């Protein structure tokens, strides 16, 4: 996905062949396609520093970075990107618009019912973004409920489910499309606090020149510590197995850490030996 005129024309010609190109290949085994040399399609949303597009559409962010390391280990260097709204990532995967979700999705039971996840790529926590000085003293969901504050988060984020579980009333929830809109809402004072991933919150603090601060992720409920996996269709189990095999070889290794270091990923994020997708699916 680059912005050149050539790709514009190519996509237009492709679009013009409406009848022939309209019906995309119905769930070809991903492995077959990739082995035949076709590019693998990465799907993600704009969520700095997790995954976001570069100036020419190249996949940036640490989830993309480590995915590319694993793909390289599998011998796959041919890839394309698809930038989506977060809430559209899972339906897009199921509609075969791309092949793997590298947005940095937490492994949750509700998601496991609709897709497969690779082995965990890391353990991450959530945090709240509040105005500098934390005037309303909000550090977790219970504080939000008590203070009657408006909490903003993204549609389809794990935090929506988490907030509901903690009992935050819908009247206090504000849903926007994604990370960018969350910061815009906070800047405009439309919400008193935002809840998102710790990494996302730190990024927002940086972008806002100190107008906001991040709460301590340790103040959030223990079960909001989540594992992230690479999302795949349930109909591509062979690819999943191959991916996990390759990942086991490179996780935490030199290439992995070097690729993710620029985005702030450190050894503290590594999932550890006993982390497993089955556990996450069952317990989150």
């Amino acid at each position, binding site marked *: 996905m680059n912005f050149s005129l050539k790709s514009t024309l190519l996509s237009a010609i492709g679009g013009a062949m409406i009848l022939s190109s309209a019906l995309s290949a119905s769930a070809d085994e991903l492995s077959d396609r990739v082995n035949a040399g076709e590019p693998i399609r990465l799907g993600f949303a704009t969520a700095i520093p997790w995954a976001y597009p570069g100036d020419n559409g190249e996949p940036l962010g640490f989830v993309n970075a480590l995915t590319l390391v694993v793909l390289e280990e599998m011998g796959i260097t041919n890839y394309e990107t698809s930038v989506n709204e977060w*809430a559209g990532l899972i339906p897009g995967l199921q509609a075969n618009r791309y092949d793997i979700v590298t947005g940095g999705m937490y492994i949750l039971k509700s998601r496991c019912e609709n897709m497969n996840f690779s082995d965990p790529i890391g353990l991450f926590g959530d945090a709240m973004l509040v105005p500098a000085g934390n005037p309303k003293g909000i550090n977790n969901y219970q504080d939000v409920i008590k203070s009657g504050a408006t909490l903003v988060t993204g549609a*389809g984020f794990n935090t929506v489910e988490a907030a509901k579980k903690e009992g935050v009333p819908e009247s206090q929830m504000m849903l926007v499309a994604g990370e960018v809109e969350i910061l815009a*809402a906070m800047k405009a*004072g439309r919400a008193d606090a935002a809840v998102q991933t710790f990494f996302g919150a730190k990024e927002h603090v940086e972008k806002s020149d100190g107008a906001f601060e991040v709460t301590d992720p340790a103040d959030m409920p223990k079960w909001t510590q989540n594992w992230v996996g690479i999302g795949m269709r349930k109909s591509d189990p062979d690819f999943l197995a191959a991916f996990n095999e390759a990942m086991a070889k490179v996780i935490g290794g030199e290439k992995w850490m070097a690729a993710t270091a620029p985005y702030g990923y450190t050894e503290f994020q590594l999932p550890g030996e006993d982390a497993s997708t089955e556990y996450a699916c069952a317990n989150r």
Partner: protein
Amino acid sequence: MEWRWDFTWEILPRMLWATGNTLMAAGVGYLIAVIVGLLLMLGQRTPYRLVNFIVREVVEFIRSTPLLVQLFFVFFVAPQFGIKLSAWTAGMLTIGLHFGTYLSEVYRGALEGVPKAQWEACRALNFTTAYTYRKIVLPQAFPIALPGMGNYLVGIFKDTPLLATIGVAELMHTANALGAETYRYLEPYTMVGFIFLIISLPTAMGLRRLEAAVDRAQGKTRY
């Protein structure tokens, strides 16, 4: 994928509540548009040519650019200048301004549709400007403006889903949220389409009836 009726009934309350929001958004937006349209039209008929020119250019600019971009502009830029508006207010004002420019054109066309002779007769009879407008011009301009005004009422209603992109909790936004929460898109999106249909079709028919009634009251037959 199978349609699940149990899921449909489950989400219906939330969808209906959102429909109320949508109707309110459309209603308030339209009121703003009606008033803004009037101001913009009058702003093109001032005795100062520079003012007329500027207002005209502003109207053309807003009319020729997408509402979606305008919404994003207001949503992201206003806070950067210290103007803090809730998503609702920002959305209402933007949609009101956008459709206000359309309505100003409708009003302009309606005023120009009143025969020049009417204006001249008023001048000859020494009516004040206010009286001219109130008793002679506006009653004749109104039926001409009515179809356009009616169209844009339905149009504003159908453009409210754009407000979802800036976080306003209307119908489309709720459908998106439900889809993201439950991973079922079939029922929410189909229901949204259906709800729009059952609101806009009767409204359009009602408007056509209203136009016919106004024409008959004016003594013009339609068919």
